[in-house]
C-alpha cells in the first residue's frame, strides 16, 4: 500500500466501472470501504462523476460532422497553398536583397560618374527654361531635385507593388 493508494482500490474501481457497486459487492469489501478513507473517497467521487457524465453527454447540440469535415478540408488546402507559397516569397525577398546590394555596389563603384551624369541632366532636358536661374547658382541644385524625385518614384513603386500583391 502506497501513501496515495489502497491495495483494494483496483477492486473498487472495477466494480464502479462495471456498475456493480454496491449491489454486487462482497460484504468484506464494503466493510473495507467503510473504514478506508481512500476507498470511500474513490466511491464518493467516482459515483458523482459517472452520474455527471451520463447527465452531461446528451446535452450538446452538435455541429454536423460534414460541416467540420468541410472546414478541415478548407484549412488543409489553405495551409498547403501557404506552404507552397513560402519558397516563392523567400525567392522574392532574396532577389530584392540582391538587387539592393548590386545597386549599392554600382553606386559606390561608379558614384563619380553618376554624379557627373546627374549634373548634365538639366542641360540635356533644358530644365533651365523651366526652373528659375537662381536655382542653378548652387552647384548641387540639380541633384537636390532629381534625387528626391527618383527616390519618391521608387518609394511609390514599392507601395504600388505591395498593394497589388496584397490584393491578390
Amino acid at each position: 500500500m502506497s501513501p496515495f493508494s489502497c491495495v483494494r482500490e483496483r477492486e473498487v474501481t472495477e466494480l464502479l466501472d462495471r456498475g456493480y457497486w454496491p449491489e454486487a459487492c462482497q460484504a468484506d469489501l464494503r466493510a473495507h470501504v467503510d473504514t478506508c478513507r481512500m476507498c470511500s473517497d474513490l466511491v464518493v467521487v467516482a459515483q458523482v462523476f459517472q452520474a455527471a457524465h451520463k447527465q452531461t453527454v446528451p446535452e450538446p447540440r452538435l455541429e454536423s460532422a460534414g460541416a467540420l469535415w468541410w472546414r478541415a478540408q478548407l484549412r488543409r488546402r489553405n495551409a498547403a497553398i501557404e506552404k507552397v507559397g513560402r519558397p516563392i516569397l523567400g525567392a522574392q525577398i532574396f532577389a530584392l536583397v540582391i538587387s539592393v546590394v548590386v545597386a549599392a555596389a554600382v553606386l559606390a563603384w561608379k558614384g563619380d560618374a553618376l554624379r557627373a551624369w546627374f549634373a548634365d541632366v538639366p542641360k540635356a532636358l533644358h530644365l533651365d527654361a523651366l526652373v528659375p536661374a537662381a536655382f542653378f547658382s548652387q552647384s548641387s541644385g540639380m541633384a537636390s531635385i532629381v534625387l528626391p524625385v527618383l527616390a519618391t518614384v521608387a518609394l511609390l513603386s514599392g507601395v504600388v507593388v505591395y498593394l497589388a500583391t496584397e490584393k491578390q
Partner: protein
Amino acid sequence: MSWESIIPNVLAGEGQPLASSSPAAAMDNEQFAAFYARSARSLWAYLARVSRDPALADDLTQESYVRFLCADHPLDGEVAARRYLFRIATNLLRDYWRRPRSSSIEEMPEELFKAKGGVAQSDSQAMLEPAMALMRPRDRQLLWLAYAEGYSHHEIAEVTGLASASIRLLLFRARRKMARLLRQGGDA
C-alpha cells in the same frame, strides 16, 4: 504553372483523402462521421465540465475536430484517435486560459451552464457543480478524465501532457479535496 499542378491532392475534390499519414486520410467522410457520433458528446461533456462554460465547450469541440482532421499524426485505432482528440481539446483549453481577456474563466460560467442545461439535476449533480467551482481547472481535468472517462494514469498523462509519475499524486490530492467538498455539500 497552376496551383493544381503543384499540389493536385490538395486542390482535388472535397471528401478525398489528402495524405496517407494523417487522420483525415485514415478516415473518409463517413468514417469520420461515425467516429464523431461516438466521441463528440463525451468530448463536449469534458470541455463543458472542466471549463464550466457550455458556449466555450461548443467552440472548442468544433475546433478540436478540425485540428484533429488537419493533424499529421498517424493514429493506431479509435482508442488512440480518441485520446489524441482529448489531448487537442486539453491544449485548446489551456491556450484559452492563458489568453489575456477582460473576464476570467473562473468568473464566468456557472449560471450559463445551468441556464442552458435545462435538465433536472439530481442531488449529486447539485453538489457537484459548486464543488467543481472550488477546484482548480487542472484538478477538474484530472478528475473528469479519471472518473467520468475512465482513463488510466498513463492515458491521463498523454492527454494532459503531465508526467505520468505525478498523475497518481495529483489525482490523489484532487480526489481527496473533491470528496471532502462533496461530503460537505459543496460548501468549502
